[in-house]
């Protein structure tokens, strides 16, 4: 494949990625994790306040990297923020991942990188989480950056690539605590690659080939980068210590998974075949091509493919063995399989020399990728909040948006408008994403128990979780109009609107 053809096709792949990631970013209601991150970011944006929390919320990179986007969009307060502004960050990194694959062109070849780019671009998992305001997509970007730059460094050791992989290490650490799993998987893969390939000449080697000066340079870059973020740019030095202390909390979380406990084959199951409510999902095409990549590693013994095979398998094993699982955690190891899929496709076309066989294989691949793209479209634009979508996880139901719209419509008729009093009485699992959705209201109180709210008659709007509604419902029955809304499947919220306001709303409507 010549440079021009590759360039043209790669641009199409990139354009496809933009089309699946960019439009309709406000379609899906905010997931409670997204809302939580958004409100935390709002504090940083409004007041410049950020303190790393070793118990929750992951690293600081997400918040600081969102700042420039908010500034460019002219947003300076939490109330002024929109879903689109926040989700633009993962979109940038989701598209950036495909660009970053170019780092592997020299070693893998253009066809392999093109197919890997196509897999990443059309993958429902990658496109779906590229529209999700959580750490995952920027984390995967930094992981790929680390893998690519350390490989380039090992091929041709020099201070530039040493600093590059050091910076990526620092950024990974500042993004998510699971970075240590990736560090271990990459280190393990390098050692295994060297161990299994040592008789061969040429190509990169294991960490032993690293020059001490370069290693110091890389580590310094990593430490400086991580320290900058964790210390909130030196305003909270304790954050650096907390970043280490956090592992205690995350180790406990990983073991006692509770709701997030899933069997070891959970991730493989998600990627190979999920069938629910008349819908069937599968990214088996990518995994099948990755199997050819593994075959290529075994037969050709190309060192990068061998390294990627070890990395993908080690990372998959590590993530699968941890009882705590969420679907987005599959992305860091799936990125390895996507690179292997590129190598696998190139291997197939290299080995199959007969033209009459190449054409049907090519056609099958085109059909397979078309199906992958179709699934991505369905996952992002039609079933973005539907539990039948395998990547939808404890997602806020679209019905919840009706509640938000109702509050907005009713508040617009109240003389206090956005200063009207709203009382929210919900358990901790039912409160989010309300603080995000009600961010424009200045007087919103949150309680977890009804007595703590000190009566409800002063509030024109009351929102209660199902359990609380059972208790307060009879008390409010005569004075409030009650409506219920789905927050998540099987989780309901009851909205109480004081009769005077409800009557005004109905009168105004007709």
């Amino acid at each position, binding site marked *: 494949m010549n440079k021009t053809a590759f360039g043209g096709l790669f641009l199409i792949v990139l354009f496809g990625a933009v089309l699946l990631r960019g439009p309709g970013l406000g379609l899906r209601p905010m997931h409670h994790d997204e809302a939580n991150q958004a409100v935390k970011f709002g504090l940083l944006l409004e007041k410049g306040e950020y303190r790393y929390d070793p118990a929750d919320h992951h690293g600081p990179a997400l918040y600081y990297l969102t700042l420039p986007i908010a500034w460019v969009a002219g947003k300076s307060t939490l109330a002024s923020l929109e879903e689109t502004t926040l989700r633009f960050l993962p979109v940038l990194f989701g598209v950036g991942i495909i660009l970053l694959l170019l780092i592997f062109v020299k070693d893998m070849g253009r066809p392999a990188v093109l197919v890997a780019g196509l897999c990443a671009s059309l993958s429902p998992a990658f496109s779906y989480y590229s529209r999700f305001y959580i750490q995952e997509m920027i984390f995967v970007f930094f992981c790929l950056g680390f893998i690519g730059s350390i490989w380039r460094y090992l091929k041709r050791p020099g201070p530039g690539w040493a600093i590059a992989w050091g910076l990526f290490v620092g950024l990974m650490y500042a993004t998510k605590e699971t970075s240590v799993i990736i560090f271990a998987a990459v280190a393990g893969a390098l050692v295994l690659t060297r161990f299994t390939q040592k008789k061969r000449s040429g190509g990169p080697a294991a960490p032993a080939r690293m020059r001490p000066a370069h290693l110091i340079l890389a580590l310094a870059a990593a430490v400086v980068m991580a320290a900058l973020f964790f210390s909130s740019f030196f305003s909270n030095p304790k954050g650096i210590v907390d970043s280490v202390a956090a592992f205690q909390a995350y180790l406990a979380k990983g073991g006692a998974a509770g709701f997030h406990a899933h069997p070891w084959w959970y991730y493989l199951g998600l990627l190979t075949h999920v*069938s*629910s*409510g*008349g*819908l069937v999902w599968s990214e088996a095409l990518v995994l099948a091509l990755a199997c050819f990549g593994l075959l290529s590693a075994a037969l050709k013994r190309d060192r990068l493919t061998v390294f990627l095979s070890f990395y993908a398998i080690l990372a998959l094993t590590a993530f699968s063995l941890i009882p705590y699982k969420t679907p987005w955690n599959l992305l860091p190891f799936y990125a390895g399989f996507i690179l292997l899929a590129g190598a696998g496709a190139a291997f197939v076309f290299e080995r199959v020399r007969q033209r009459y066989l190449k054409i049907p294989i090519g056609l099958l691949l085109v059909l397979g990728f078309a199906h992958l793209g179709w699934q991505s479209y*369905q996952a992002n634009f*039609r*079933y973005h*909040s*539907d*539990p039948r979508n395998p990547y939808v996880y404890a997602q806020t*139901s*679209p*019905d919840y948006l*009706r509640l938000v719209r109702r509050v907005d419509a009713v508040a617009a008729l109240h003389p206090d408008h956005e200063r009207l009093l709203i009382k929210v009485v919900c358990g901790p699992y039912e409160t989010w994403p309300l603080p995000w959705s009600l961010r424009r209201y200045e007087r919103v109180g949150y309680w977890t128990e009804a007595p703590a709210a000190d009566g409800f008659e002063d509030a024109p709007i009351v929102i209660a979780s*199902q359990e609380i*509604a*059972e208790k307060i*419902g*009879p008390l409010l*029955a005569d004075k409030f*109009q*009650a*409506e*219920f*809304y*789905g927050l998540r*499947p*099987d989780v*309901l919220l*009851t909205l109480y609107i004081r009769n005077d306001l409800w009557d005004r709303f*109905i009168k105004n*409507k*007709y």
Partner: protein
Amino acid sequence: MTRKAIIYAIASVFTILIGLNTLALCQAQDTGKEELKLQLPKPMFIGTPRNIKTANLEVITGKPRGPFFAPKGTKLVSLKKPVLSSDMQPVIGELNFVTDGEKSGEDGYFVELGPGKQWVQIDLGAETVLNAILIWHYHSQARVYRDVVVQVANDKDFVTGVTTVFNNDHDNTTGLGIGKDKEYIETNEGRLVDPKGVKARYIRLCSNGNTSNDMNHYVEVEVFGTPGK
């Protein structure tokens, strides 16, 4: 004396209950009605959903629906009848699933219409006296379909002579008027609507997403009537 009084009281209550039941049956027979035999699919979830005490949601009793009496000669008139929809190209299922007689809650038996407000319309082929409409949106999960409105008419475009026989759109989101019926949680019993003998050829059922997602589903709709009247 007290014991005797209790026995008399219990006996009286039973006598009254039996009397009322007999009276109801006699009335049904007097008015030429008989119990409509409904074939229900097997339940897809065990137990009753949590009772949500909200003004516009029907209280869940956990007990089976009582018998429904319809005029003698009432029979299923919608089986295999043509179906139109606001979404003529459903992603899941076919529109003819609505009247194909299959009521199972399992995958492969429902049609899924697009998000937001959608309708399906059954053409009975001729004006019919309508005595019961039984609707199953989706009964493998406890969920509530929003703004359910059932209308009947002889005009296929539903412009003239439209009669609304069920409406739980309490704030007129659909623009079809404020409904006084309550919202309800889907179960294998389906929703039985009494059209009270209104005559019509077309039945249109509207909905506006549900509490789990914003799609609209139909497993089956059964229309019972007295044909040729």
